[in-house]
């Protein structure tokens, strides 16, 4: 199902927990690494490996915003929209990115590079507004700083 390296990783991760099902979150990251998003087959496979029901895995995948169930861009731009960030102008940031990239919320740019998402609290209220790019945080962002981040990513 996964590449040999990832299978090994999964086997290793499963030894960390007393109950197999507890490995579901890291296991899903492996799946996402492998395919870019969590596919139907990934869910079926992990359900089998971790002794869970398919619906349970589905529940977990759809609950967390770090997992995606459909193909997404290389960089996932997630703007926090919860209270502190919203008060500090998160809505304008989202709108700015949307204009800049020409894609709506939840959409992916035609070149497959960026996906824009609005998410709930990222836990950085003191440094609001916050933009999360894949696993990296950018705090106290402004339209200008966001532009810089996107410029940098586009050149990569």
């Amino acid at each position, binding site marked *: 199902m996964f590449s040999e390296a990832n299978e090994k990783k999964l086997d290793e991760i499963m030894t960390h927990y007393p*109950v197999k099902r507890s490995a579901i979150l890291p296991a899903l990251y492996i799946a996402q690494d492998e395919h870019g998003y969590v596919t139907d087959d990934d869910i079926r496979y992990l359900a089998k490996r971790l002794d869970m029901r398919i619906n349970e895995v589905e529940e977990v995948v759809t609950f967390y915003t770090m997992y995606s*169930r459909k193909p997404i861009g290389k960089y996932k731009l997630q703007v926090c929209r919860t209270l502190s960030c919203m008060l500090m102008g998160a809505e304008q940031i989202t709108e700015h990115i949307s204009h800049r990239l020409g894609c709506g919320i939840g959409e992916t740019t035609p070149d497959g590079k960026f996906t824009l998402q609005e998410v709930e609290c990222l836990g950085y209220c003191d440094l609001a507004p916050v933009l999360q790019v894949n696993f990296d945080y950018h705090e106290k962002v402004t339209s200008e700083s966001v532009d810089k981040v996107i410029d940098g990513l586009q050149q990569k």
Partner: protein
Amino acid sequence: METVKITINGQEVAAPKGELLIEACEMNGVYLPRFCHFRGLTPQASCRMCVVRVDNPKIPKLQTACTMPVSDGMVVTTDSQEIEEVRSAMIEFLLSNHPVDCPVCDRAGECELQDQTYGFGEDRTRSQYDDKENFLERQISPFIYNDPQRCVVCKRCTRVCEEWMDEFAITTVNRGSQTLISSFSGWVECSDCGNCVDVCPTGTLLHVPYKYVARPWDLKQTPTVCNFCSDGCSMLAGSRSEKLIRTVARDGRGRTAGGINHDFLCSLGRYTIDFVHNRQRVDRPMVRRGEHLVPATWDEALNFVAQRLSEIKAQNGGESIGVISAGRLMNEDQYVLRRFAEETIGTKNADFYHDDDEVDLAAFFKYGTPAIATQEHIQSADTILLIGSDPNEENPLTAFSIRWAVRQKAARLVIVNSMPSRLERQAQTAVRVREGSEPALIHALVDESRINDAASAMGVDAGQISDIRRVLVESAKVVVIFGDELRSAAVEALALLEETLATPNPEVAEASRKAHIDALQRAVKSSNSTQKPSINENPYTYIVEHPTLEVAAEPVSSATKFSFVPLVRYSNSMGAWQMGLDSAGTGGLSAQAMINAAGGSIKALYIAGEDVVSKAGGNASIVRSQLEKLDLLVVQEMFLTDTAELADVVLPVTSFAEAQGTQVNNGSQVQFVRRTIPPVGQARPDWMIVTQVARLMGTDFNFQGQLKNVFKEIAEKIDGYSGLSHNLLANEGATIIRRALPDSGRIDHADLHNRLAMLTAAIDRSVAVDSSELTAKAGSRLQNRYPLITRYSEMISPKLAEESALEAPAPVIFPA
């Protein structure tokens, strides 16, 4: 039962120890609003509607009554300014995303959100209408519509699916305001029990057949009893304009009302009822004229039947006529048929149709009536031994009760079966044996010295069998559930279990039970979760550490250590037996023997409600040619079945919805079936037709056309029925028929052991043990089990045929 004193709103009341506060309040007349709390489900505490103030300096915040067990001296306030405000705010939150479409919602009128908004909410909202999340209404299974926007995310449906049905077919996806009830593929693959729809407090989940059909306040609600399997669920039949529209569990929505099935119904009881109004119903009597059956008046048809029967009786004697009834006919019908056979016709050949698929009742009742377990007994059993059969697919309520016992009461479930069963997931011990070798288990249980021999016959380890034996010996109360796999001597030998597996002393049972609970609790702790412990590497068996949910119910147990549930096949097989309409009782030919003798010693058959041709399966053509040899074939039927088509006369009868009567379930409980709608066409009840034929043949049963007179006679003549009446049963609900316990003095031990040894020796040891995983779709066997009726249900039948052709609808909506 231990009680504690608590004070609710200044009034001191008593409540069962360990009971949840919300239930304790309700018992004492204080109703607390709730969405997520539901009797029989694990606490969820997500809706926050049942908040109360507990007067205790250590508990500064409002508490959810649905998660708080009562304790002695607790002082509770359920109604104050503060609480009112919280409830009103909760309602406002719930409504912030709820469409105001009550006028087109099928739940309106019995919607809990409606009621509670009316009772506890405000008449205005501060949320902006434009900001509502929009989700499209969609169908998620052949029987279920989902309108996600109406959802209050109480998770009753997903908990029912998981805890009651052990199916986990629906779940919640996404989170926050975008939470949906859905599943992995967006299409729900399950046994279609529909319980998730019934427990839904809003119009989020709706029954497809009930959509836009009627308003709940327009329905005439009649308590009645399901007519399919032998569990006999009580249900509430809703009819409108003389049409049966829907059925729901009689206790409905968590209220207690004396039904035997809590809020449970299965797909048959719920969705198959449309056969009642199938256009193929025979609506008038039909008489054969040459090749064809042509409509006739009742007078013509009855006179013809009476005249021909009298002629045949005069010519060949009464013994040349046979009477066959169906196991689903009610007690009154069976009783009248028996009198008809005995007095009017003068034949011993009367039998209710049963073949190898039916439990061997003659053997079971050979020495008297063993203690029979009801659903309540199963639910409070210490140990449950399931031999053969698969209640999950055949008797869904029994399966529900088994899961309930394991989950809520930490019962030990031991399964010995030759085929895969989903119940194995709940089992403490599940042993897969050779097909047909189940009787060997009984042999090993009643005779310890034969364990090795029996184990090799079953194709299992002798150790496994001795383990089972040990568990049974150490248990205080055992319910043995068995199906048609046990026959003759193996069923008779059940009467020996009581003495051979007696518990040495109560301490042994207590210690064993304690060890079992300790093991479960260790499993709970070691799995780092109080919710999903792993027992026998089985993550889906739960044990609630503090089983607070059902403490209110007095533990039910039988007087004997062993009690039995014979999983008889039809809704009233047990009743037919009790009425004596069985060849073993009458001493005549069995139904099959009568058919075999057709054209020979049997010249005429009077068949009430059984399609003997289709029943014969592969032998249908033989049965058909046998029936063609008869001089007269009279059939009482709802439909022109394969058998009815061969008849000389077809007499239209009422379905369970149009008839009254009593029926007996597999727990030997008699229940009253009320008439929900008037007869369709000119259909008449079975008992009435038989009485009329009998009168025309010169015997007046003197019932004066009154069904209650039939039952009066049953109460006088039939063992165990004395003192009962229709009125009493209508008020009391299910009533247990008690008869004399087996007389062990009558058992010829040596002979019985001999015959058991022969059974064990006869087992074909070359058969491989089926160790396959369960793959068949859940519920499919159930729906195929009653083809005679389900094929006339437009709701179920196309589904059975087209299931595979159905395509999954648009996938689930995922958040951005």
